[in-house]
């Protein structure tokens, strides 16, 4: 079924794009292995869509290279690149029916007998029988699948997805996430997926690159990035973290000692991004547990004490805010498994964690605790 073209890794080398004085993409270099599902994750305006458009050829880089199987395609016109895009707006041709929309790419390359391929592709995206409808007669989710089929039918070496699920409602989005992942596994094409939705990126991608201000903050497998973020931005953009400002006070072998707000904590050396000077001690809210008194804290765990200032019951868990002695509120997510003691605002409590679940990040001098998440942008916004 697939054309036997030698595909290869997609490599961006020192890619830069400037719009006047504004640098949208800043000296970006990364390698996307062939056949992988790669997500570019970032807030609006971080340069992720510009990066995608440079790969597609819709934007010309100011400098740098886009290498596909070691061939620089950065200056090729879009219609000469073995790359196809699923656009955020879908951009289906309103004057053509679904069949002709899907057949568009094949026909432009002079392929005559498209019938079988189009039907095969429509059944892959579960739209059999919709051949003669017009795009306007389809729902958002169906249009999205037509856009996907229209791009996939060309067997591109790389498929680019620009916030493809942004316009769908939550339930449909979940469904399409699973669907996209299934299709990617089935066709084995490299997918580069741009999104601002961290959950979407983590659900689907093998590798996630978190972008901020035109640069990549961290790149890795979703679990790796989540469990051991490299920067404070990543720690709070991907999920939520309690970051407590401290200073490295020394180390012994496998442990690094940190003083923060009068307390002394230790972090395994393997969990430290920085081992000197000002640091952030980070713990994810779900890795924190609440106990009534310090005596109840299991051996080997470390703790903070404070007063419960808020308790929100959200069904699967209860989200507590614990006000520490120095005024910072840390988040604690307690699973509603029924085994734990419940707290109400005003209760004295201690939050404890296993040091192996904490991490240490470099901190600029003067930067304080960071415990609130980066505000997510509204669904459908683009960068």
């Amino acid at each position: 079924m697939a054309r036997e073209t030698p595909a290869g890794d997609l490599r961006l080398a020192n890619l830069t794009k400037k719009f006047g004085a504004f640098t949208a993409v800043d000296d970006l270099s990364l390698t996307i292995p062939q056949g992988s599902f790669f997500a570019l994750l970032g807030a609006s305006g971080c340069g992720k869509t510009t990066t995608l458009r440079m790969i597609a050829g819709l934007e010309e880089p100011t400098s740098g290279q886009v290498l596909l199987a070691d061939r620089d395609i950065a200056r090729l016109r879009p219609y000469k690149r073995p790359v196809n895009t699923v656009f955020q707006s879908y951009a289906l041709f309103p004057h053509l029916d679904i069949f002709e929309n899907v057949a568009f790419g094949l026909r432009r390359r002079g392929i005559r007998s498209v019938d079988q391929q189009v039907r095969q592709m429509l059944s892959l995206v579960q739209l059999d029988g919709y051949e003669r409808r017009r795009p306007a007669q389809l729902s958002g989710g169906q249009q999205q699948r037509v856009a996907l089929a229209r791009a996939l039918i060309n067997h591109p070496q790389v498929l680019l997805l620009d916030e493809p699920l942004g316009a769908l409602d939550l339930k449909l989005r979940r469904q399409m996430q699973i669907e996209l992942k299934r299709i990617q596994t089935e066709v084995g094409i490299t997918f580069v997926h741009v999104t601002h939705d961290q959950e979407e990126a983590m659900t689907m991608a093998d590798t996630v690159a978190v972008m901020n201000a035109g640069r990549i903050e961290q790149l890795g497998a979703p679990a790796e990035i989540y469990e051991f973020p490299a920067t404070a931005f990543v720690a709070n953009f991907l999920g939520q973290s309690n970051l407590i400002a401290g200073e490295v006070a020394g180390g012994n072998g496998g442990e690094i000692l940190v003083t923060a707000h009068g307390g002394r904590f230790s972090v395994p050396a393997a969990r430290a991004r920085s081992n000197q000077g000002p640091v952030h001690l980070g713990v994810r809210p779900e890795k924190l547990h609440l106990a009534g008194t310090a005596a109840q804290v299991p051996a080997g765990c470390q703790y903070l004490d404070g007063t419960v200032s808020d308790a929100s019951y959200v069904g699967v868990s209860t989200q507590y805010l614990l006000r520490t002695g120095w005024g910072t509120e840390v988040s604690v997510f307690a699973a509603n498994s029924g085994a734990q003691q419940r707290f109400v605002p005003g209760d004295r409590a201690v939050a404890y964690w296993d040091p192996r679940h904490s991490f240490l990040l470099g901190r600029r001098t003067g930067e304080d605790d960071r415990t609130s998440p980066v505000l997510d942008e509204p669904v459908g916004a683009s960068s």
Partner: protein
Amino acid sequence: MSALAHVSTASGQPASPPPAAGPGRHRFLPYLLLLPGAAWLFLFFAVPLVQLAAASLYDPNGSLSTGYALTWAFGNYPTALQAYWPQFGRSFLYAGIALVLGLLMGYPLAYAIAQKAGRWKNLLLVCVVAPMFTSFLVRTLAWKTILSDNGWLVGLLRDVHLLGPDGRLLATPVAVVLGLTYNFLPFLVLPLYASLERLDYRLLEASSDLYASPLKTFRRVTLPLSMPGLIAGTLLFFIPATGDYINAELLGTPNQYMIGNVIDSAFLVRLDYPQGAALSFLLMSAILAVVFVYLRRAGTEEVL
């Protein structure tokens, strides 16, 4: 029926509530709103049309002084066509050539204004419309100056030997076609502009992403999506251009006369009402036939 009866009896009883302000009360409103326009159309279009149809069947031997009799003289039609078929053919030929020239100039112009002009868009649109502030007649007379034998254009063309030493533009078919093209161009450009202005550039990007070169993108995306404007524009250009007589009269000679000139003279010079009326109806049906065929083909996307 029963509902109507019920309503009328109910309204007759003093104890019943007043009729609700439902759809029934506004049933005649649309017709009321139509009335002024419909009356105008009836008095000044339908009635004269019937009168003209009757005139085309008057006894051809009558005259204004002796009076006309309605003799159902269908023979007026073949007679008129036989006498003036060259002018008929010329009308469609000139209007057709002018339309092609108009499209060659008007489509790129409308495209540029709609998609590429940026903040100059409104200014350029004003430039397209501005000539309309002077009268049609004055503009055509101005062309007479431009194309005159001792004007700069003819001088230039003679110098580069595109025209012979005593070659001329005025009083030739070229002048008439140029005049038609110029005078009706805005009617082509404006509807085209409206269509192209709505064209979503993201569709052009999508097309380019799907292996379509700029030329193929134009042919497969831009052109089909601008069809409504193209159809409206060509009709607004072609129909009045075919019936026009000012350009042939001012820029041409009797050798370039179009059917409009013949009708004009039949009514106002020769005072041959039956013939003028018959020619008018022939022109109308010929245009309707052309438009009908055109719309049938354009509607099924196989016009090109």
